[in-house]
């Protein structure tokens, strides 16, 4: 599971898409999910959410591989399962549970919001985050974020190895014991990174923000789709 998580922050670097497009699409999706979902009519809400889900999965497929889609679907399943468990518990404890369809739709909405964040994480390169933060005058945060995101995967893999070892050593009874070796590992690894930075420095990225044809097409298609999803439900209700 930890190894799967490591892939959340991986991206395809050969995508020739402008940073503006990469920022616009996830932000537009998040704003739509926050402000434009029509919750008065369940059927229309479902239509809006399913369309957004299809859009997000298509983008994830375009960005990368099947692995990312599988991770996204696992993510959705975990959220829905948690919702169902809570609902079953509330029935068992004689509370009045939320309607099943409401629960599923709101869970879907939360998932889609997280998928939009995932798109941003997988689509925008680490160097582009660094560039954005530096433009905002946050140079130190830009450096920290760059290193954390770049070194996230190998550290997670070491953490997964430590968990395996401690579970077998203590029979799964004292998982909290994993903290100490992990701190020591992280300190040593961090020190090695500091040495490498001393020798190689932190190079500035070369970011292209120019908009190409593909960017115009993507922005137009997403914008039209979102506007239609906003307008159509109102006509249908009237």
């Amino acid at each position, binding site marked *: 599971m930890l190894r799967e998580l490591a892939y959340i922050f991986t991206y395809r670097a050969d995508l020739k898409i402008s940073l503006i497009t990469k920022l616009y699409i996830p932000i537009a999706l998040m704003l739509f999910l926050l402000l434009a979902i029509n919750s008065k009519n369940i059927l229309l809400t479902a239509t809006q959410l399913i369309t957004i889900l299809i859009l997000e999965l298509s983008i994830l497929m375009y960005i990368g591989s099947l692995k990312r889609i599988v991770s996204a679907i696992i993510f959705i399943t975990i959220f829905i399962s948690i919702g169902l468990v809570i609902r079953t518990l509330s029935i068992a404890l004689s509370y009045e549970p939320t309607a099943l369809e409401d629960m599923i739709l709101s869970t879907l909405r939360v998932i889609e919001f997280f998928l939009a964040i995932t798109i941003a994480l997988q689509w925008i390169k680490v160097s582009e985050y660094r560039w954005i933060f530096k433009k905002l005058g946050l140079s130190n945060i830009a450096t920290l974020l760059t290193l954390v995101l770049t070194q996230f995967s190998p550290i997670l893999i070491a953490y997964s190895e430590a968990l*395996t070892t401690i579970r077998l*050593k203590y029979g799964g009874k*004292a998982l909290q014991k994993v903290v100490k070796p992990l701190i020591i590992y992280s300190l040593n690894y961090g020190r090695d990174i500091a040495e490498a930075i001393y020798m190689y420095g932190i190079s500035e990225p070369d970011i292209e923000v120019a908009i190409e044809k593909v960017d115009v097409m993507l922005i137009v298609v997403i914008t039209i789709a979102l506007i239609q999803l906003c307008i159509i439900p109102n006509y249908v209700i009237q």
Partner: protein
Amino acid sequence: MKKVLEVRDLWFRYPNSDWILKSLNLDVYEGETLLIIGKSGCGKTTLIRTLVGTGVNIYGGEIRGRVIADGRGLEEYSVEELRRVIQIVNQDPRTHFIYPNVYEDLYSYSLHIYGAREKAKEILDEISKYLGIKHILNRLYFELSGGELKRVAIAKAMLSKPKIVMFDEPFMWLDDIGVKNFLDVLARLKNSGITIVVFEHRFIPLINHVSRVLKFSNGSLNEVPLNILKKVHHTLFHSKIANASSVLNNKRVVEINGVWFRYNDIPILKNISMHINEWDRIAIYGNNGSGKSTLLKIIAGYLKPKKGYVKRFGRAIYIPQLITLFFTEESIEQELKNICRSSRNSKDCYSKGYSILRNYGFDDLTQTPFNLSWGQQEKLAITLSLAAGFNIFLLDEPFSGLTYIDRIALIDYLETIPGAKIVTISSSDSISLLRGFKLYKLNDGLLTEYTPDAETLHSIDYNTLIQIYRD
């Protein structure tokens, strides 16, 4: 020949430590390939840190003496200038990356050095062609194999066209393919006239590639004649591997039958069957990514096979490649107490464990396991597990951080430990040391009994090794 690095009366110590470098002298000549060997923890990495300034600037150490690189004192260089004279490739090349994508990382560094986009691209193109990494430029660094990663790290070091390149334990974590890959790059660098200094205790693969060898011990360097190193593996080994010990009434402890395992629908293990008896010593040899660790975790019961079954008639413990991840307490005594809590009779386990640890040479139980040498940590992990009643020991690449002498010592130690021992290895230079082990090869998901060829079974002349490392 012109000297490119001159070190005179160099002393170095970390804050609150004894002197690690003691009046060290060193001359490195232009275009030569120098090998520096030494025991684990003798201070090889400290020497590198001192030569490039990280010892003082990152660790706050104290330095005395003089280092002259390319005609100028080290203190006269800015960090930017020093990058064009000396470069280092660390033990763990993953730490070199600022950006995850290989091209992005190398290109931004090239741009940082040369300023102009065209020039940065041209130099990167030239170096990546020369080192044969063009096909992996668009990959993420953590998806690369150990050998590819090392090659990319070398390319990054070469971008500033330094006069001297230093390698800190370049064979660490590398399998046979990675070692071959590194030697190929080394030959290319030598041809281009760069001065190379390699710090490595696994010297056998390097013997025919270096011009001089120095031994680091007691804080200083002494020359070792190359012919003595060549003597270490001169004759063919009459394998004791084939005569793996057979013990009467040897009880079966693991039964593996038709095991299959997949990661993301890719089969890693295909129809693996194997029986392990109580006194067996087994070595599983295979390249990185061949599924050795996965197989150990399946034997341990941590991973479930997709098909087939594993039956254990005993308790299995997994000892990871990164041995420090095994320890959780600040003293050996606390380690013993905690590991005994998981056994059925913890009081009995503790009193027995106490004497087991002493019998195996761990007298000072108050010392912290994290400060022990790599080899001692491996031994401690095995002994603690023995004390807690484990009898199936699964050691993932236990030899990767050890000198040849430490490897032999660990193999001898394993012989004295009751229980089944299964070790994985990814480099063939350990094979000839594995006395009494049954050898298997894991390749393309299939596990087969393995008989090494004559070239692999070189002998290690233990007496000559002792002579080399004698202080």
